[in-house]
């Protein structure tokens, strides 16, 4: 049989495999970049929402209770809890007009919880 000097199947498969590995590597970099961008946006959005909830709590006189908020566009839901914080002073007296406001962002997709908190007087 006459030898024609072509490539062996093994060589072709090897070359194609290297090419595919390189392309998959580049594509995964691409995906990682997009994911990072999405996560950044998600975190910024959550942070702004938590700060907004804390600021909203300051606008009206605090009242004990819990309020749940529907999930946002990133499927992060929020909860605000206002509790009377009975702060004991060194002389034994108790401050009864300080409230603890805590806001929680529940990221069910990432199984993460981000908490923000502030303390406010009832009679500002």
């Amino acid at each position, binding site marked *: 049989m006459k030898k*024609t*000097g072509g490539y062996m199947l093994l060589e072709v498969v090897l070359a194609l495999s290297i*090419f595919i590995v*390189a*392309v998959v590597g*580049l*594509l995964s*970099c*691409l995906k990682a*970049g*997009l994911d*990072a*961008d999405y996560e*950044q*946006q998600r975190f*910024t*959005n959550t*942070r*702004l*929402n938590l*700060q*907004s*909830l804390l*600021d*909203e709590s*300051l*606008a*009206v006189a605090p009242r004990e209770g819990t309020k749940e908020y529907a999930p946002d566009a990133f499927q992060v839901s929020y909860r605000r809890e206002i509790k009377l914080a009975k702060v004991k002073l060194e002389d034994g007296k108790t401050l009864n007009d300080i409230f603890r406001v805590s806001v929680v962002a529940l990221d069910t997709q990432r199984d993460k919880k981000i908490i923000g908190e502030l303390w406010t007087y009832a009679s*500002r």
Partner: protein
Amino acid sequence: MHRVNPGHGSRGMTLIEVMVALGVMCILVSGIFFVVQTSLKTVIMVDTAASRQDEITNLVDILRNGFRNLPVRTQIVAKPLVQDGTEQIVLVFRDAPGFLSWLSEKEADNLIVLLAFRRDDEGAGWRVCMKRFVPPEHFSENEFDAKKLLALGAKIPWLERVGDFRRVGVRFFDAEKDEWLDAWNNPKERPSLIELKLVSEKVRDARSESSVLWVPPVRSEVASR
């Protein structure tokens, strides 16, 4: 002399083989080029988006801290208006030394600070701008109006903070009436909350950032003046 016989044992490639090889190579190279180009574009886009996020969060943080630390005597009026063809939402702060800037010892008490969300003259987008000036001595209480103050400080250039917003919305919360308003016309009181809705222009898709900022209430002695 050694002579090479082209027809015996040294077979070259035919034109078709060369063409096919070149075609395959072109496809592979263009594939790689496409992937690399897309990767680079993504890197640039992600970088731009991250910078944009930083710009917006910085702006919101600056405004949040500014509002939170407003001097007790500072009065606010705000309204959306169109002046000289420019659509804008103008927030006027009176007696606001140190607001959105370093507090200078020489800063006059009756300093006026204008914070404006202005649509670009060419309709390219909204910008967040500010300017500060001391009104003339004959400035009276009746002139504490966004439109009049805008005209009064017309010669002072705007200092642009952030631009390229597709849309900007500002609302003011009246805690007594429990309602959100598009303008704030009562300098004796302050809105309890100011809502900012910023929709970005630069990134691949429109991104809306909404923030609510608390404004401490005005003191009773200021309200009664």
